[in-house]
């Protein structure tokens, strides 16, 4: 693999490395440290943000060690990293398996191992091991994710660490690993799997969230049910349009479906203005007829896609009604409660929803410019729980205002888009897959963490990269990112060596 003469021509490491990413990384670290200062500032010990006994002081230690770690990673040859992929993965599986037995209980979580006076969370580090392993497997010659055999291997590689982390009662960290499916999608996983997964989540959230609300004040109709039926019809039409676009006969195939949609609307209007009745049943009937119609089309045209769409429509309806049943009859009360609070159905300021309400108050009170560094009242007076870890974004919102929040979000967006660009320029599948893994992880963390603080996504306790206090997550993200930067820095050499 190595070719000494070609290698000499390759630019040096410092020339090949992507400085833009490093710049974004450093800026985020600096902003993150400011936020930890704001969030952990204690009125009783004012003026000691640099003291190592405080969290802001400790965070400096974590940042310093992360920078050192980043430098060390850049010193390692990327080929060494690649060759160690499987070993690293297996080591992490062992560590994750052992964690619950070694861990001491922190708020019901068994994910922390104590080493000396520090605690580390293996789940935070394991991400890069899984990413490396996936990249290595998918980079092997002849691997094709579109083959069931290969796809199942990938799913297993992801599912095993998820299962091990769930055993540590860290559901949030486990869910992060589902971000790898975004990478699988890029690598050729059929889009409908992603589509089905998203549709399932949307049906569930919408159906539950608005189940108790009436449509237009007509008590007989449930808004949640109506919206889900509408979504099913719209999705079905979208799918039929995609399929029929390729066949000349298909142009008119969609017309009856539009008619069904119109009937649904008329029914709702009648219920509202003429005589109140449950027009949602009309929508259900329309969906039922749609299934029959699609079955007819598939028989007439001998078309499998129509059959699959019919199946989708049918499964969608069944799914919607079964989640309602599961929610009411199978889940335990506290699980139901968690979901309800998540969806904003329970107003319980001192209960589970308290975090979200206080988070919104803290952010909302920041205004355009914020209250200024260390001047936030909500975060400093501990109104927001977990304010220097999972809810750190509140501090940004309160102290730096809309401008600060926008800068932070845009920095994350540019980091993700930069990683996207870097991944696409990788000459090998290994680098590209690993790059997509990294960006998927970052995207998932930002999506869930900021979303939950803003009250848009479920409250899943995962950190905001580079902002949340803690050594494990900061080291984890640094390793994850810099391994990719090291792989990227070696791309030219790899390219030239492969050309030779």
């Amino acid at each position: 693999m190595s070719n000494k003469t070609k290698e000499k021509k390759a630019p040096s490491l410092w020339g090949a490395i992507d400085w833009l990413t490093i710049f974004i990384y450093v800026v985020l670290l600096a902003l993150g440290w400011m936020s930890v200062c704001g969030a952990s500032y204690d009125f009783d010990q004012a003026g000691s943000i640099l003291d190592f006994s405080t969290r802001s002081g400790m965070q400096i230690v974590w940042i310093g060690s992360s920078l050192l770690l980043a430098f060390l990673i850049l010193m390692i040859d990327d080929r060494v990293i690649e060759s160690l992929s499987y070993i690293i993965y297996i080591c992490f599986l062992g560590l994750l398996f052992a964690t619950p037995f070694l861990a001491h209980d922190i708020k019901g979580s068994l994910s922390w191992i104590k080493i000396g006076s520090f605690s580390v969370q293996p789940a935070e580090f394991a991400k890069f091991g899984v990413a490396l392993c996936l990249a290595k497997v998918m980079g092997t010659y002849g691997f094709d994710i579109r083959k069931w055999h290969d796809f199942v291997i990938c799913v297993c590689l992801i599912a095993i660490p998820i299962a091990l982390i769930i055993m540590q009662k860290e559901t949030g960290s486990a869910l992060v690993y589902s971000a790898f499916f975004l990478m699988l999608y890029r690598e050729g996983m059929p889009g409908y799997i992603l589509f089905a997964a998203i549709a399932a989540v949307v049906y569930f959230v919408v159906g539950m969230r608005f189940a108790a609300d009436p449509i237009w004040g007509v008590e007989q109709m449930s808004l949640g049910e109506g919206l889900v039926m509408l979504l099913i019809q719209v999705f079905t039409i979208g799918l039929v349009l995609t399929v029929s676009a390729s066949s000349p006969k298909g142009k008119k195939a969609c017309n009856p479906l539009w008619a069904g949609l119109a009937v649904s609307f008329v029914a709702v209007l009648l219920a509202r203005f003429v005589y109140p009745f449950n027009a949602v049943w009309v929508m259900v009937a329309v969906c039922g007829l749609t299934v029959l119609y699609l079955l007819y089309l598939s028989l007439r045209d001998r078309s499998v896609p129509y059959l699959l769409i019919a199946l989708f429509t049918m499964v969608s309806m069944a799914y919607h009604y079964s989640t309602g049943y599961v929610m009411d009859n199978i889940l335990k009360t506290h699980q139901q409660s968690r979901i309800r609070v998540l969806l904003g159905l329970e107003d319980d300021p001192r209960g589970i929803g308290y975090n979200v309400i206080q988070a919104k108050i803290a952010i909302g009170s920041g205004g355009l410019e914020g209250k200024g560094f260390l001047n936030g009242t909500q975060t400093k007076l501990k109104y927001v729980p977990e304010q220097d870890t999972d809810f750190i974004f509140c501090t940004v919102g309160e102290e730096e205002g809309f401008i600060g929040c926008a800068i932070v979000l845009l920095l994350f967006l540019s980091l993700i888009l930069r990683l996207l660009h870097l991944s696409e320029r990788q000459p090998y599948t290994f680098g590209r897959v690993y790059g997509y893994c990294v960006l998927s992880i970052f995207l998932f963390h930002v999506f869930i963490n900021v979303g939950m603080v803003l009250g848009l996504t479920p409250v899943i306790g995962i950190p905001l990269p580079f902002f949340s206090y803690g050594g494990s997550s900061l080291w984890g993200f640094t390793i994850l990112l810099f391994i990719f930067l090291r792989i990227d820095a070696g791309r030219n050499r790899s390219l030239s060596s492969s050309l030779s």
Partner: protein
Amino acid sequence: MEGTKPTYELEKRKYVIGGAAVAIILIYLIRLFTLQLLSEDFKASADSNAFLKRIQYPARGAISDRNGKLLVYNQPAYDVMVIMREQEGVDTLDLCESLGITREWYERRMEEIKDGKRNPGYSSYTQQVFMSQLSTEEFSRFQEKLFRFPGFYIQKRSIRQYSYPNAAHLLGDIGEVGPEDIEADHYYRSGDYIGKLGVERSYETALRGEKGMEILLRDARGRIKGRYQNGKFDEAPIPGRNLTMSIDIDLQALGERLMKGKLGSIVAIEPSTGEVLCMVSSPTYDPRIMIGRQRGKSQRMLAADPHKPLLNRAIMGQYPPGSTFKTSQALTFLQEGIITPQTAYSCSHGFHFRGLKVGCHGHGSPLPLIPAIATSCNGYFCWGLYHMFGNRKKYETVQQAMTTWKDYMVSMGFGYKLGIDLPGEKRGMIPNAPYYDKAYRGDWSGLTVISISIGQGEVNLTPLQIANLGATIANRGWYIVPHVVKKVQGMPLDTLYTRKHYTRVQRSNYETVVAGMRQAVLGGTCRIANTADYEVCGKTGTAQNPHGQDHSVFMGFAPREDPKIAICVYVENGSWGATYGVPIGALMMEQYINGKLSEASQARATEFENRHLYSFSDEGVKD
């Protein structure tokens, strides 16, 4: 479907992924925009979260008498506070014993504190009021043992204290605000104090001052974490204004002493200023029983007393003025030209005319005005009214005569509230023409209403109005609305209490009446009031009381020239005016003008103090 998609097709998926990232960030930015820039609610919520606006109470103004003697001042009281989280494991029995409470009371109180509905600001981390207003003795007893009760603290508060056991009706008291007070004035919050009676109530806004505000930072557990911006936005409380009463507390104390065991009132006014020198209402009570935690109990006890000690008879009692009213009749007849000082009417033991008979006592007949006043002749004034109401040259109808008469009465301060600076004043009763038209269906004459000329019948005055009549005569024709507060610190007095009100009667006519009142003291009904020290003018009254013994009334002033004091003494069921009214009035004038009582007078005062009237009649007071 997609099984055959070539690799370059897959590369397009980067747009899907990148697009999703852009969409997510965009949605979040929109959300942030609405949260941070479009809604003010969160700012308010954040402030109410973090800022504890602690009210700082101003010191209530002190009250002193006209000679600068302190009457009402503030004294520290002590509230027992508890922090629930810290108090666990306290020996309850010991605590109850130290505070003199029962275990049941303790348990009920603890439940009340924890009840979020009754105590909305409850937090187990902050101090809650456990027991309020401990006296200094209770406090010092508890203080010694305080170290044994972790979680219990003492908070200083301020309550009212009184130097004298007198003037309860005038000074009034303070109590916790009710919901209606809070509704009426948003200055108040639950638990605040407000003046309930007397000047504490009428001068509430001056006395209370302005509350200050301290903005503190409070953490999520309710603990105080310091001042917001080092107190930059704090507001210091403005202390209440001090009041100087026009009352002479020594005179007031003597009055209360003399009225012991009697129902009635004494009102003394400085004629030149309208300042009330004393205002006694009997029975009275010691204002000190209304302090602190015992207020409720005392209040209930006083309210249940059949002699109504809470009633300020001086301004709420409406009595027939009796013969003291004759002075006002003399003034009216003179001014209207019905009589001259020389006009003489005959009186043979009363007024006898067309079967109507108003009795009188023995005196010479016929007699002119001055001796008529001096001897308090009923016949004279009945004739006067008869001639006035029957004068068809001057008045077309009896109604017109009546209206003229009423206007005179009103100009002398009768029939309406005078406007004293105390709550609850009553207006008394002066009948008018429509009143009699209704009562007698239009068929009436001077004879029908003849008793009003001698202060009986429908006429009712408050003791204050009678005293004010005395002040008006002393001034020869004008009065200033009586008031009990002489000065409000840093504020001019209301112009109502500086403006002269002139009656419809000219000065020369007043001189005639003054001469009559002087004659009464020298050789008439008020002889007991005569003294060599100064010239006393007076008029007795014996108000007929259909329910029991007549009321004893005295109205007078002294000295005759440049009067210092005008007075009304009204003793319910006190029989003749000379029995109680005159001697009490004389003692009061002596005390005020000489500054002390002579030895003989002192003995007399003691005698009157011990003369109790037991034949109480509840109907004696109309309220």
